[in-house]
Every structure is written in structure tokens, then in C-alpha cells.
């Protein structure tokens, strides 16, 4: 049985959207976070990069921002600007669950 397990293909998994938060400095380095380790680091960096980029471009467009909320049907990203860096909250949501109908 153990031998069969050794040669069996790993089962594919689906990316689960996380709930949690992380902080990122002005250089885009993720400092601390509460996101599950199953969530890819690359995507965390991607989110951080997009959020910081948005804050910077807003400033350049003379529209300084302190809070950014990005709403997707299944995920809400909230980012608060912190001296060039940001604290980012991710909240996965189920749009068709009975709770969200109210």
C-alpha cells in the first residue's frame, strides 16, 4: 500500500481565497502576515505591489489616498496606507450564501 502511495500522482488542489492580513513596507517587502501558508507568496507580493502602486499613482495624480477597498464577488481587499507602506486585509466572501443575501 505504501509503495502504491509512493508512485501515485499528487492530487491537484484548488487555490482557496484566504482571509487574513499582512503588512508591507514602502519597498514592497512583506513584513508580517496572518495569511495561511497555503496561499502562494507570489500572490501576496502581487497584491502588495498593486496596492502600493495604486497609492503612489494616486499621489502623483494629486489625489492622496489613505484607504483603498477593492471589491470582487468573492474577495474584498482593504488596504490602509502607512508611511509609504500599507497594511492589507483580505476577506474572502461567499456571494451566494444565505448570509450574504440579507
Amino acid at each position, binding site marked *: 500500500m505504501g509503495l502504491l502511495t509512493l508512485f501515485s500522482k499528487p*492530487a*491537484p488542489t484548488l*487555490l482557496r481565497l484566504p482571509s487574513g492580513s499582512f503588512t508591507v513596507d514602502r519597498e514592497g517587502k512583506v513584513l508580517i502576515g496572518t495569511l495561511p501558508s497555503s496561499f502562494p507568496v507570489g500572490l501576496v507580493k*502581487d497584491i502588495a505591489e498593486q496596492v502600493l502602486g*495604486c497609492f503612489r499613482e494616486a499621489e502623483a*495624480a494629486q489625489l*492622496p489616498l489613505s484607504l483603498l477597498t477593492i471589491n*470582487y464577488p*468573492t474577495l474584498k481587499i482593504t488596504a490602509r496606507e502607512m508611511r509609504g507602506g500599507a497594511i492589507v486585509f483580505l476577506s474572502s466572501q461567499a*456571494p451566494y450564501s444565505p448570509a450574504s443575501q440579507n
Partner: protein
Amino acid sequence: MLFWTQPSLVFELESGSGQSYPLITIAMATRHKILLLDDDPDLLDMYREILAQLPSRPEVFTASTGTRAMAMLESEPFRLLISDLKMPKMDGLQVLSIVRRKYPQLRTVVLTSVVDETFRSRVYALGVDLFWQKPTCEQEITMFLECLESLLGREAENGFRGVQSKSLVDIIQLECISQSSSALRITNGPLSGKIWILDGELIDAEAGELRGERAFHKILSWRAGNFETLPAEPSRPRTIFKSYNGLLLETAQALDEARSPELTGEPGAAPASPSPLAQLSQVEGVEFVLAMKPGDQEHHEARGLENPQRMAAWSKQTLDRFRSLGERLHAGPLDQIEALGPQRHVALCSRRPAGGGIAENGSGQGDTDFCVGWKNSMNLEQIRENMKKVLSLWAS
């Protein structure tokens, strides 16, 4: 049991369970193509045989990887894609998020063994038509086939999802004739409304700030959308006292009258309406409104902005940035962005008119991107609430 006649194909199909599908007539030209995607070749073979039992006799193609499926979709038009979720390299969510964007007219079904409410929600958020757990008994297979047949026959034009090829008028008539008691919730993009029916009589309607007959007329002016039937609310106060037939007739007349000037093109028939942006900027708390065509850097309209160019550039960049991020995360299409600042707040979103397709960049053909500036005295909740009003005004 299969009976064939020519030139049109008339047949009666009897499933293994002994249940007969109704006699139907189809022409060769209308045979739909179905693409089945699963990484398990045995399952592909099995489902190919099962799908061959469908009364409409679709052509069934198979793909064992997401990449192969994408190539096949590129090469010829399909009516329906049935995809598994858990697959190596490119999973079902990845395939579906691309497919929904590139082929908005393609019907999509997820057939999976994943039983998880989160994934079911995400799949529906991507705009997939049906999420179905892999059938385990003959009865489930029959139900699945019935759903597929219904999806294959459903037209992509006007109509309300939930009952195929039926207008809202048909749905209301059905409810009233059958003496039903129910509440219908109807959504059309950002607009939503509700109609209450008690013992086959219309008793109330609500659409935004409108109530009663006015709300009913408003809801019926929407040509497409989604509806769901909710439990009846017998204690709902009655505001509509006319018969449903009378009201439906009035609505039909009003819609005809509204359409006739633009159809006939009679000079002077349509009064000059104020600029749409001027109306939007009347909503409480709005400082400026900027409307842009996606993919068109130059074309935008603004009201209340001294230098709209710079704001338009930032808005487009931000919307594109987070649309792409949403695709990478498979979180569904970007809904709305709210940004608060010490000077002013802004909300960004994109709205597509009913029936609009989706372009390569993830935005719809005929979409309008919006950036609405709000007074900094407003809080997030107020902005969200008033943004709905702005979008409703735009949609109407």
C-alpha cells in the same frame, strides 16, 4: 430506442431508466457542440456516452487539459463547456475565468466532485451557468441531462435567467394565473426590484425609491436580468389595487410609446434630455463624475473636474490594475473600488449595458468606466449607497 426519419431528424429517445424524452424535431444545422474537460480519460469516455443520450444529439468533444480545451475553443465555436475543477497545471477555475472573459456567449457548466460552498460560490461568481456535483446514480444523471438540454436550448438574447426564453411578463402571468403567493426579486445589473404576489394578485412592488405601480412599471421596463422566487409575505401592505392584466397592459402601452419616437424618428417627438452626467452629479455628495470608454485613452466625459485628463489616466490605470489582479486570483470580475483620502474620496467601477459582450481586456464591449468623486465628509457606507444611485441613474 431510437427512430430516425429524413430529411429532418425526428426521434424518440428512451433512457436506460425507461424514461422517454419527448418527441422532438431537429435539423442537422442546429446540432450543438459540447466540449468536455476533465483530466480523467475514463470519466471523459463515460460522460461522452452519457451526453450522447441528450435529445438534441449534440456533438461531444473532449479535452484532458485546460490548454487543450482553450485551443479547441479557439478553433471552433462551441455551445457548452463542461469542466472539472481539480486538474493539474491549469485548474477549472483558471480555465473558466479565461473562458468567461473570452467567450461570454459560451454556456459553462462545472461538473466536479468538490463539495465546498466556497468553491460553488466562486464558480457562480465567475458567471458559470451551472455547478453540478458529479452524479452518482441514474436519477442524478437524468436530472443532469435535463439541465444540460435546457442550457443548450436557452437563447442568449433577451430573457430572464431562471426560466428560459420567458419574459418577465410571462413569469408574472404564470404566477398570477396559478394563484401563487410569492415574492419575485429581480436584478438587472446594479438595479434591483421586488414584486409581491398574494393569491395570484399583485399587491406591491419596489424598485429603488419607487413603490407600488410606478415601481412595477419601472421593473417591467428592464429587458433582461435575473430573478428569484422568494417565500410569500402575506403581511406585506397592499399598494397595488389594479388587476395584473390591467397593469401589464398599461406597461406594454407605456413601453411601446417610449420606443415609438426613436423607432419612427419623428422630428420633435423626443424631448431633449439633459446630459446624463449632469443628472449623475446631482446625487448627494457627488463632487465630480468621469465616464470613460475602456481601451480608449482619449475619449472621456467629465463633469465637475478642472483637469479630467489626469484623473482619467489614473482611473483607467487603477481599474486595469485590479481587473488583472482579480483574474490572477480567480476572484471574479472586479466589482467596485472605493478610495478614501484627506481631500476627497473616489469610487471606481465599470458598467456594461444589458446584452453587452466582453472584450479581450476583460471589460465589456460598450462598457463605461466610472470614476465618481465624493465629498470627504462622506463615509464609506454612504459612498456605497449613493454610488448605487449613480449607477441606477446611469443604467436607466
